[in-house]
C-alpha cells in the first residue's frame, strides 16, 4: 500500500530554541492511504509540529517527509493541491455566514461554483449545520465554529486531510457527527491525520495510532497492536479489601476509591478474577484502554526524564 505520509528521521528545532530542545526528534512514521491515522500525546509533545510540517506550513530542520510521495521541501505545490487542513485553534472569518465559510473556501481552492455549491450543501447536511447555514460566524458557539471548519475541509476535494484537534469544544452528539463524517471520508479512500486529546476518539476512529512524547515516537500501531505491546495488557478493578502483597504478585497495583486497580497479563487476570469472586468481591475486567497505555508510557517517560535531569 502507498504511504499517504512518510516521515524519516524528522527533526524540528524552532528558531531561537537550543538544539537540545527539539520539538521533533528523529521521528519516523508511515501513514497508509485511505485510513484515519491518530496522533496522540501530551500538550507540547510535537503533534501539531508534525502536522504543520506535513501540511507544508512549517519547515523541518532535518530529515525527510513526503506526502503522497511528494517531498515537503521540493514539491510543496503538488502537495498543496492534494491536502486540506483545519489548524489547531483556527476560527472561521467572523463576518461570513456558515454557508459562505464552506462555499468560499471551495471556490478559493478553484472549484466550479455549481460543484462548490453541491459540496457545501452536502457537507452542511452531513454535519447537521443546514439549519445554521445563514447564521453569521460571530453569532455561533465555539463548537459550531469548529464544526463549520470541519465541514469546510471535509467538503473539499483534498485526498489528505489534516485535522488538528477538530472536535475540541464539541458536545458529545456533535463529536459523533464529526466522527461519522470522518469515517465517511475514510471510506471514500481519503486519508485523515487526526490529532486529539480525546483518547476515546482516537481509538474509535483510527486504524493506526502514534503516541508522541517529547517529539519522539513512543508507540505506533493499531489499537490492538498497542495493547499487545504493553507489559500488562489487562486491567482488573477489585472493589473491597484484598491483601495488597498478593495483588502485587499479579502486576502493577494502584489504589482507587473503594478498592484496587491491577494491570496484569491475561492468564493472571483470569486467576485474580476467580480468587476475587471466591472472596465475594465485586470486580470488572478487560483489556487496557488507550488512556491506560497513554498514562503508562507517558508516565514512564516523565519519570525517566526526571532521573536524567537529576543526574545531570
Amino acid at each position, binding site marked *: 500500500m502507498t504511504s499517504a505520509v512518510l516521515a524519516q528521521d524528522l527533526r524540528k528545532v524552532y*528558531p531561537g530554541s537550543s538544539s537540545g530542545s527539539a520539538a521533533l526528534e528523529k521521528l519516523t512514521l508511515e501513514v497508509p492511504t485511505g485510513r484515519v491515522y491518530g496522533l496522540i500525546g501530551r500538550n507540547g509533545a510535537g503533534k501539531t509540529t508534525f502536522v*504543520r510540517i506535513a*501540511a*507544508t*506550513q*512549517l*519547515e523541518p530542520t532535518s530529515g525527510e517527509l513526503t506526502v503522497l510521495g511528494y517531498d515537503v521541501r521540493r514539491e*510543496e*505545490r503538488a502537495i*498543496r*493541491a492534494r*491536502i*486540506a*487542513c*483545519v*489548524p*489547531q*485553534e*483556527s*476560527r*472561521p*472569518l467572523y*463576518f*461570513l455566514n456558515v454557508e*459562505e465559510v464552506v462555499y*468560499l*473556501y471551495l*471556490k*478559493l*481552492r*478553484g472549484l466550479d461554483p455549481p460543484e462548490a455549491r453541491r459540496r457545501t450543501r452536502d457537507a452542511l447536511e452531513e454535519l447537521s449545520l443546514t439549519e445554521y447555514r445563514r447564521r*453569521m460566524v*460571530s453569532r455561533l458557539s465555539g463548537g459550531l465554529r469548529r464544526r463549520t471548519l470541519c465541514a469546510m475541509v471535509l467538503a*473539499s476535494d*483534498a485526498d489528505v486531510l*489534516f485535522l488538528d484537534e477538530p472536535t475540541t469544544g464539541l458536545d458529545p452528539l456533535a463529536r459523533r457527527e464529526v466522527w461519522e463524517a470522518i469515517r465517511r471520508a475514510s471510506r471514500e479512500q481519503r486519508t485523515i491525520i487526526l490529532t486529539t486529546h480525546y483518547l476515546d476518539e482516537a481509538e474509535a476512529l483510527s486504524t493506526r495510532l502514534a503516541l508522541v512524547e517529547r517529539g519522539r515516537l513512543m508507540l505506533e500501531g493499531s489499537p490492538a497492536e498497542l495493547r499487545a505491546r504493553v507489559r500488562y495488557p489487562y486491567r482488573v478493578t477489585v472493589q473491597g479489601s484484598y491483601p495488597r502483597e498478593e495483588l502485587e504478585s499479579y502486576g502493577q497495583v494502584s489504589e482507587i476509591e473503594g478498592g484496587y486497580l491491577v494491570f496484569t497479563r491475561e492468564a493472571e487476570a483470569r486467576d485474580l478474577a476467580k480468587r476475587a469472586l471466591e472472596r465475594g468481591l465485586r470486580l470488572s475486567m478487560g483489556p487496557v484502554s488507550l488512556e491506560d497505555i497513554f498514562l503508562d508510557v507517558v508516565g514512564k517517560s516523565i519519570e525517566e526524564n526526571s532521573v536524567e535531569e537529576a543526574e545531570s
Partner: protein
Amino acid sequence: MSERNRLRSLFTLVWLNGLIPIRTQPLFLVNLLASPLSFLFFITIVSGGRLLAYGITGGMILTMLSVGTGLQSDLTHYRHDLKFQDIVVASPVEAPVYVAGMALSELVYSLPGLAVFVALFVVKGYATVESLAVLTGTLVLVWGFASALAFTLATYFQDVRETFLFSPLISLVLTVLPPVYYPLSVLPGWAQFVAHFSPTTYAAGLVQGAVGLAPLSFVGAAVDWGVLVGFTAGLFLLAALKARWKEP
C-alpha cells in the same frame, strides 16, 4: 493550479475580504477616507485654500498607502488570530494569488476615498488626459509597493498589536515627512536628499508635476518613473525572497 482557477481564487478573496465585510460593517467604506480628508481639511484651512491642490494629490497617495497599512493589519490578524493563512497555505492557493487577492480586496475600501479625491481633482480643473494617466500609473505603483511591504511585514509580526505600532510609523515615514503634501523645494538641502529615499517623494513629484504644481522636465519625470518602478520592483522582490509563507 490553472490560470482560470487562479483568477477564481483571486476574485473569491476580493469577494470574501473586500465586499462581504461591508455588509456587516458599512463603516469600512469610510475608514480609509478619514485621514486623507483630515489632512485636506487642515491644509486648506491653514493655507487659506492656497495648498488645496497639494491636499488633493497628497490625499490620493495617502489613501493608497492606507490600503497597505489596512492590508498589513488584516494579514496579521488572519495569520495569528484566525489561522486563516495556515488554511490557505495548505491548499492549492499560491502566495502571490493570496497577496494579490487580499490587496485588491483592500482596494475596495479605498474606492469612496478615491472617488472623493478624483471628484475634487476634476472639479478643480486638474484633470487632463496626461494628468489622469500619470495619476493612475502612480497610484497603481503606490498600491503595489505598499501591498508588497505590508505582506512582508505581516509575515514577521507575532501579534496584530505590532501592526498598530508600525502603521503610524510607516505613514510618518512615507507620507508626512516626504513632500507628499507640500513641494519638495520647501525642504532644506539635506532634507531634500533624505526625502529621496522615500518612494512617495517620486510618486508625489510625478503627480504634482502632472498638474502643474511643481516644474518637472521630461528627464526628471523619466527618472521619477524609473525610481518609483525600481522601488516597487525591489519591494516585490523583497516580498518574494523574505516574506514567510511557510514558517521557518
